[in-house]
């Protein structure tokens, strides 16, 4: 089980390494409080999972970056890495499609600062579609 998990993490890192996310060279940067990798538990429900091959739960690790990850960047990351089809049915503009609810650690994201919320390690993010037919 454990080697399997490691293998999965490695493949995930390989995938994410080729991302167009702005990554500065950490060695040359003297900023010491560089954000550690953020591991997240993402859930999709109410039909939103159909856009992700029907997979409801995703455990992902976001790649290192200098600035802390916020929800806005997460949405871009999801759009580029997880979404399988019809991105316009999940993301519109730089926020989620109206009618899709977002919960951060089981609380309304409107209480958490919505797009400005800074993601912490082991956060649980849930997307629930309330639209008819998902």
């Amino acid at each position: 089980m454990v080697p399997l998990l490691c293998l999965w993490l490695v493949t995930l890192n390989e995938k994410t390494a080729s991302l167009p996310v702005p990554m500065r060279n950490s060695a040359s940067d003297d900023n010491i409080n560089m954000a550690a990798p953020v591991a997240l538990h993402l859930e999709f429900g109410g039909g939103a999972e159909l856009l992700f091959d029907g997979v409801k739960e995703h455990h992902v690790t976001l790649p290192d970056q200098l600035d802390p990850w916020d929800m806005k960047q997460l949405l871009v990351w999801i759009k580029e890495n997880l979404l399988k089809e019809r991105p316009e049915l999940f993301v519109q503009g730089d926020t989620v499609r109206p009618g899709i609810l977002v919960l951060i650690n089981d609380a309304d994201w409107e209480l958490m600062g919505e797009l400005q919320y800074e993601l912490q390690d082991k956060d649980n993010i849930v997307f629930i579609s309330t639209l008819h037919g998902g």
Partner: protein
Amino acid sequence: MCQVDEEYNVHLENKVTPSVSKKCVKCKENTAVLIIRAGDAFCSCCFKEYFIHKFRAMLGKNRVIFPGEKVLLAVSGGPASSSMLSQVQEGLSRDAPKKLRFVPGIIYVDEGGVSGQSMEERKRAVSQLESVFRATDYPYYIVQLEQVFSLPSSVLDVGSSATKNPQNGSSYKAAVDQFIQTSQNQHPDLSVKNALSQLSSLSMHEAQTGGSSPIPPGQTEALQRLFASVRTLTAKQDLLQTLRHHLILHTARTERYSKVMMGDSCSRLAVKLLSNISLGRGASLAADTGFSDSRYGDVVIVRPMRDYSSKEIAYYNRMFDIASVFIPSLDTKAQDKASIQRLTESFVTKLQTDFPSTVSTIYRTSEKLHTACPPQNTNTQTSDKCLLCTCTLDTKTEFSAFQATLISEQLSQRRGPGANVRQGQCCSAEGHCGSGENGCCPSAKVPGPLDLKSMLCYSCRLTIKDMTAVDTLPQYIVSEAEQRNRRSQMREEISEFLLEEEEDEAQSF
């Protein structure tokens, strides 16, 4: 204009500012977990109380469901109806004073044959739902949409309304008192339990015979042919809703349920209100979106979830682990502009994100709507009701814009305009016909292709217009149409010997 724009911008910016770690507005102690209306933040404890109270208050306020009455819950597996099921369970399990006292049953209509699901997918969804239903111990009925092909045409009849008058508050009170007395005389609380246990034992039997009944061969194909003959998604969704209602109504009648609960949330109803106006269903708007809908006479549809927004429901289901089963429907993964219903939904939800009072404003409007004629006209002839949606026909008024459109449409069509116009007049004003216009009536006697249109309301006409062929319609609709046609023909034939009511009154003066 500029000022207005500026005001909106300020408003929007204000809304975006984060409000981290707010306290609950009710208990003012716990940290809030969700915002319901603009600015109202609740903690999960207070939210649960608020949610449960709302359901009870909705039923208490309207006083439509009598104690001991059989109520059929229409559960689609979606969040709203699943939540409704859990609320009914909650209400029935309560202690004496606040207990709900009706006898519930569940119906699920399996529409997988329309949305192109495979047999395996449908079976999986049904078994998921069955496990939810079994946990409730209520009787349940699993009905495939294919069964519309074996419905009797009596479904389209309007039943005579129940003997009790639901509007009367005092009779409701009397009924409640009587119910409490009888249950006390027997044994506290045992009567409902007995009834329930009897019903559930019945249901196990039924579930084994009815629930897993195989679909007769060819019916899935017939269903697919029917929906393939409909050109637009708008009409498909409309037709599907009509057929679904017929099936639920039929089950309610055969199993002797006098109420059907639908799980429409207020977000859903706001969308329904606007899309129904666009679909030309304005005349039956009050019945389509109100709390209770008595168009079928003997079976009344109630919508107890109409005070909840879809957000509240989604949060409640998430927080308190209410199981719901996602089943793809016709409009799953469809574009915004795929159908009128879909477009209206995206319009309302988009507006709602920027202006959080959108849904409640539309919904409050729907509360104030009433039909012009009082609802007790269930005694009117079935020929005055739409063949498909059973609403009162809105096409028989003589001087409406609709009649003008019809006439201009017929005039613009070159082929034999004269006969058509006359026939149209004949249907729209039977009074003139009876007074002996000989040029008119014979044309109606000629047995030609079935004239469905004259039996439909404006909106259902539009739906049928979008079909390439009407012969794919289920038999019960066609045979009922033929019967109504025969009846109206016979009426015309003997019309010379009928005394007209208006003349009669005039003579008596």
